[in-house]
C-alpha cells in the first residue's frame, strides 16, 4: 500500500528529476508500493515530456519563410493604395495634368534649344500685365486678372487632340506664382534630364470666382508627372 505521506514528495521528485532525499531513498528500499509509484510517475513524466517535445518541435514547412515574405510584400502596398486613393478622386485629372506637363516639357525643350541656360528660359516668364494679349478669352471669362495680378504666365503648345473642354483651344496657359518661375524651370530641366518628378496641384483659393464648372473635368488634387521615354532622346 502506498504511503500517502511520501506521495507528494515522490511525484515532485519524478517531475523535477532531482535526486531523492536520503530518508526517501531509505523508505523506497523498504516499500515496494512506493518504489512502483515512483517508477510510474517517472514514466508518466517521460511520456509527458516526449509528447510535449514532439508537439512543440514540428518541422517548419520549407516554403513557409518564402510565403511569409511574399505575404509581406503584398502587405507593403497599403501606403501605395492610400496614395493612389488620393489620386483616384481625379484619374482623368491626372491624365490631363500629365498631358499638360508633357506639353510644357516639349515647349521648354524647344526653348532650351534656342536658349539652353536656365536664365535664358527664365527670361521667358513675364508679368501678366505686361502681356495682356496672351490672356485668352476663356481666361477672361473665368475671372480676369486684375492689374498687378501676382501671376506670371508661361505659354505651352497644346495638343489638338485634347478633349478637355477647358483646354479645347490652340494654346494652354499655365499660371505660376510670381517668384516660382525659376523653380518651375529647374523642374522642367529635371524632367528633361529624367532626374525628378514634378507635382502640380490645382489651387483655386485665390480665385474664388473661378467657375468650378469650367474646371470640373480636369480638377486636380495632386498629380505626379513623369516624362515620356522619348523626351530625353533628343
Amino acid at each position, binding site marked *: 500500500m502506498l504511503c500517502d505521506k511520501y506521495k507528494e514528495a515522490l*511525484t515532485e521528485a519524478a*517531475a*523535477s528529476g532531482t535526486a531523492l532525499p536520503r530518508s526517501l531513498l531509505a523508505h523506497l528500499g523498504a516499500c515496494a508500493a512506493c518504489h512502483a509509484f515512483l517508477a*510510474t*510517475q517517472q*514514466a*508518466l*513524466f*517521460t*511520456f*509527458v*515530456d*516526449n*509528447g*510535449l*517535445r*514532439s*508537439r*512543440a*518541435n*514540428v518541422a*517548419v*514547412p520549407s516554403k*513557409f*519563410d518564402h510565403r*511569409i*515574405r511574399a*505575404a*509581406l510584400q503584398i*502587405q*507593403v502596398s497599403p501606403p501605395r493604395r492610400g496614395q493612389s486613393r488620393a489620386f483616384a478622386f481625379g484619374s482623368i485629372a491626372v491624365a*490631363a495634368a500629365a498631358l499638360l506637363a508633357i506639353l510644357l516639357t516639349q515647349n521648354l525643350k524647344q526653348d532650351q534649344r534656342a536658349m539652353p541656360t536656365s536664365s535664358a528660359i527664365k527670361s521667358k516668364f513675364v508679368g501678366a500685365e505686361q502681356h495682356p494679349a496672351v490672356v*485668352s478669352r*476663356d*481666361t477672361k471669362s473665368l475671372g480676369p486678372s486684375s492689374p498687378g495680378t501676382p501671376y506670371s504666365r508661361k505659354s505651352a503648345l497644346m495638343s489638338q487632340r485634347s478633349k478637355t473642354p*477647358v*483646354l479645347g483651344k490652340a494654346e*494652354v*496657359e*499655365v*499660371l*505660376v*506664382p510670381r517668384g516660382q518661375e525659376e*523653380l*518651375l524651370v529647374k*523642374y522642367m530641366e529635371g524632367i528633361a534630364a529624367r532626374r*525628378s*518628378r*514634378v*507635382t*502640380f*496641384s*490645382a*489651387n*483655386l483659393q485665390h*480665385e474664388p470666382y*473661378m467657375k468650378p464648372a*469650367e*474646371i470640373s473635368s480636369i480638377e*486636380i488634387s495632386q498629380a505626379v508627372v513623369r516624362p515620356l521615354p522619348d523626351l530625353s532622346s533628343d
Partner: protein
Amino acid sequence: MQELVLIQPIRAAEEQWTREAAHAARRRDFEERLAECGPLAYRVARGVLRNDADAEDVAQEALLRAYRRFDRLRDPQRFRGWLVRIAFRLALDRARSAKRREVRETEWAQPVRRPASRTAEELAASSEFQAHFDRALDALPEKLRLVLLLSAMDGYTVEEVAAMLGLPVGTVKSRLFAGRKKLAEKLQCYVTNTKKR
C-alpha cells in the same frame, strides 16, 4: 482655364522619400526578425492547432498583424513574446471556431488500436498516446499550455521563456511544474492500462 500652382515639389518629394525610406527600414528590421520568429510563431500555432495548414495560416496572419503594428512596439526586445501571444491567441480562436476540429475530435474518439508499446519513447510516439496526450493538453488552462509549449521547444530555456512572456522565472517554473503534473495525472490511467496490456 485650368490654373496650376507649383507646390514645393522638392519638399513633397523629400517627404515621400523619407516615408519610403522609413518604410523600407521598418521592413528590413522586421525581416531580420522573421528568420527566427517566423518558425516560432508557426510552432506555437501548430502546438495549439495540430494541423499544418491551419498553423501556417495562423502564423502568417500573426506575422502580418505584427508587421502592421510593428511601429507601435516600443521595446523591440519584446517582439518575440508579443508575436508569440498574437500567434497563440489567433490559434486558440481558430481552434475554437474551426469545424475541422470537430472532425478531428471524432477521429480522436476512435483512436487507432495498435499493439502495446514497450518503452516510454515508443508509447509516446504511438498515435493512441498522442491522441490522449493531445486531449489532455488541450484541456489545460491557456496560461499553462503556452508555457508548456514554449518550454518544450528546442533552444528555449526557462529564463528565455520567462523573458519572452514577460513573466518572472519563478512563475514560469511553477506553471511548468503544474502543467506537467496535470498532464501526468490525466495520462496516468492511460499509461496504467497500457502497462497492464
